[in-house]
């Protein structure tokens, strides 16, 4: 192995995972410095590493590549390092090594997936991500978080198995574990697609996200919001760019969660639904597959990671200081938490794609790509979803948390480290919105796109402001659906209730069948046969007991067969 590479280009995944596992060895201020230094070290080592493959290993007859750096993987690598740093700042005061280690290993898993050069390496880091992220939910240490974590890991184990099956068949078919364009054709590709789709939260495989993320710890949710879905966006973009079903799945994915987000009472669950909605835009972009669409997808993933983390941080800060997170318990917090309120509104403006905020410069690329390909219905759906996401993430989240009805809560701003983390994410979101060139420069394809044209700014402003007018009129007229202490059924019903119902059905039907068989054959038929042969008239019976016994044995044998099956 080349030694200069060893020091220059240590795979960021290793820095995070090995470095993260060593966190408990440090104490006090040194520990904080160490945790802050790791993501920076990974980021700068990434900047220094030239494009190309490094860290080759041989397994069986296959060549495994731990670190494949090209334009597509680099963008995701950068943003994963940046957001880890911000999330670590946000979590700096958490006195729980479990959460710190889990966060670092999880981020390392996502970076491992990003830079994996083959499907085996991909799978390894994929599972590291699943396991380590579970601890961020478990670490909340409540009963509901324990069961949510259990459901979360079960779903991801199932998704991982689909992926593994797909990978094995793919390698069997093609003879190589190459991790590059696959395309939708043949069993292997569909299995791999399904495995990715679970992590990308494509409906109806999405409910794990809105089930688990709101149950995670305050700081854990920030990590969770960044890595699982966006690494799935990356692998989809690499393997299934231009797969037509993704266009329509993605468009539906932008629309369906909106309705749930309107009804939802738990604010972090509203954000989870809007996360699914935003990833829908990316899936749609991958499906369209043109350079403009892929650029849009990657840019949107980059911006989305920042503002979604910002939203989870500001609402998490509210949960941290008030202990409450439901719309029905909150309101009027702007009075004593103006900074957190301001950061939340920057996040809200960014996710709503207001001009001068980051979402505007990235989402518009995807929608333009749909327009460019003359996908009328998709274009309309994406515009509809843009108005919808503004309505719930842009207005509802800040309105019911910081304004609306005064809850009477008078709490202080969160600790300084949390404010600094939010300030960084908010600053970056505005910076990218005002000056998108640095982001455009690192996208996979050359960018020929101008976000700030008069027509585009005007169209977007009208869409948003008149959407806000609808919200205003409905609230003022009292027609807006009230926030209720209630939950809403989603497709997780099938494994949460449906599973139990299935068990009850199987239990009662099969065990019922057993009871009937026992009644008819063992007690009824066998007994009456035995009685018949014992009491049979001499002329009918051959006169000796052994025949009766033989018949009884035969009857029991048959009944036994019935019972066994």
């Amino acid at each position: 192995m080349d030694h200069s590479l060893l020091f220059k280009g240590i795979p960021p995944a290793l820095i995070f995972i090995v470095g993260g596992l060593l966190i408990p060895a440090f104490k006090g201020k040194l520990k904080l410095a160490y945790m802050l230094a790791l993501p920076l070290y990974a980021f700068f080592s990434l900047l220094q590493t030239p494009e190309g493959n490094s860290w080759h290993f041989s397994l069986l007859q296959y060549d495994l590549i731990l670190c494949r750096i090209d334009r597509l993987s680099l963008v995701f690598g950068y943003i994963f390092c940046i957001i880890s740093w911000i999330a670590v700042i946000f979590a700096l005061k958490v006195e729980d090594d479990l959460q710190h280690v889990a966060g670092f290993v999880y981020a390392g898993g996502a970076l491992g997936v990003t830079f994996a050069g083959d499907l085996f390496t991909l799978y390894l880091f994929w599972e590291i991500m699943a396991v380590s992220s579970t601890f961020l939910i478990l670490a909340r240490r409540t009963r509901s978080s324990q069961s949510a974590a259990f459901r979360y890991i079960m779903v991801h184990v199932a998704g991982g198995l689909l992926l593994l099956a797909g990978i094995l068949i793919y390698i069997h078919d093609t003879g190589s574990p190459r991790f590059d364009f696959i395309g939708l054709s043949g069993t292997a590709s569909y299995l791999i697609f399904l495995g990715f789709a679970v992590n990308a939260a494509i409906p109806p495989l999405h409910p794990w996200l809105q089930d688990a993320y709101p149950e995670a710890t305050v700081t854990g949710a920030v990590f969770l919001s960044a890595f699982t879905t966006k690494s799935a966006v990356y692998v989809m973009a690499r393997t299934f760019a231009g797969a037509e079903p993704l266009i329509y799945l993605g468009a539906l994915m932008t629309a369906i969660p909106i309705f749930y987000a309107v009804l939802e009472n738990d604010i972090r669950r509203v954000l989870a639904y809007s996360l699914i909605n935003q990833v829908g835009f990316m899936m749609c972009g991958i499906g369209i597959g043109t350079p403009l669409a892929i650029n849009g997808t990657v840019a949107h993933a980059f911006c989305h990671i920042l503002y979604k983390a910002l939203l989870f941080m500001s609402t998490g800060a509210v949960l941290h200081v008030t202990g409450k997170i439901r719309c029905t318990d909150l309101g009027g917090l702007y009075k004593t938490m103006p900074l957190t309120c301001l950061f939340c509104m920057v996040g809200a403006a960014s996710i709503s794609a207001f001009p001068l905020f980051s979402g505007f410069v990235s989402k518009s690329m995807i929608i333009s790509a749909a327009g460019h390909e003359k996908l009328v219905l998709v274009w309309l759906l994406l515009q509809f979803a843009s108005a919808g996401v503004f309505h719930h993430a842009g207005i509802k989240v800040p309105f019911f948390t910081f304004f609306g009805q005064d809850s009477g809560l008078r709490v202080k701003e969160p600790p300084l480290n949390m404010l600094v983390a939010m300030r960084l994410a908010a600053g970056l979101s505005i910076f990218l919105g005002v000056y998108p060139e640095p982001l455009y420069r690192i996208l996979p394809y050359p960018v020929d796109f101008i976000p700030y044209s008069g027509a585009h700014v005007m169209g977007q402003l009208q869409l948003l402001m008149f959407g806000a007018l609808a919200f205003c009129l409905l609230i003022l007229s009292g027609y807006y659906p009230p926030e209720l202490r209630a939950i809403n059924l989603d497709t997780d019903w099938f494994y949460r209730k449906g599973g139990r119902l299935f068990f009850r059905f199987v239990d009662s039907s099969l065990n019922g069948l057993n009871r009937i068989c026992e009644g008819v054959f063992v007690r009824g038929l066998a007994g009456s046969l035995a009685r018949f042969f014992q009491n049979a008239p001499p002329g009918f019976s051959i006169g000796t007991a052994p025949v009766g016994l033989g018949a009884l044995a035969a009857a029991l044998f048959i009944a036994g067969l019935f019972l066994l099956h």
Partner: protein
Amino acid sequence: MKKELTLFDKPQNVRRLLRLFYGVLVVLLILDLFIQKHAYFPWEGHAGFFAGFGFVSCTLVILIAKLLRVFVKRREDYYEK
């Protein structure tokens, strides 16, 4: 603790904000007439298309959500039972 903000406790401030908001809407509609369009679809070029689309979309979102609530709403302890 610092003095708390009470900006929106005064009804006249809320009224002022709403008036400003309606003013912005009118300005947007007027400015729209003077902007050069480069549309992918013919309807995009019409002045006020996005205004109407945004208003109708957000209203639809809420109406459909209200309808959806009838079917999916359950008690908070639904899954614990």
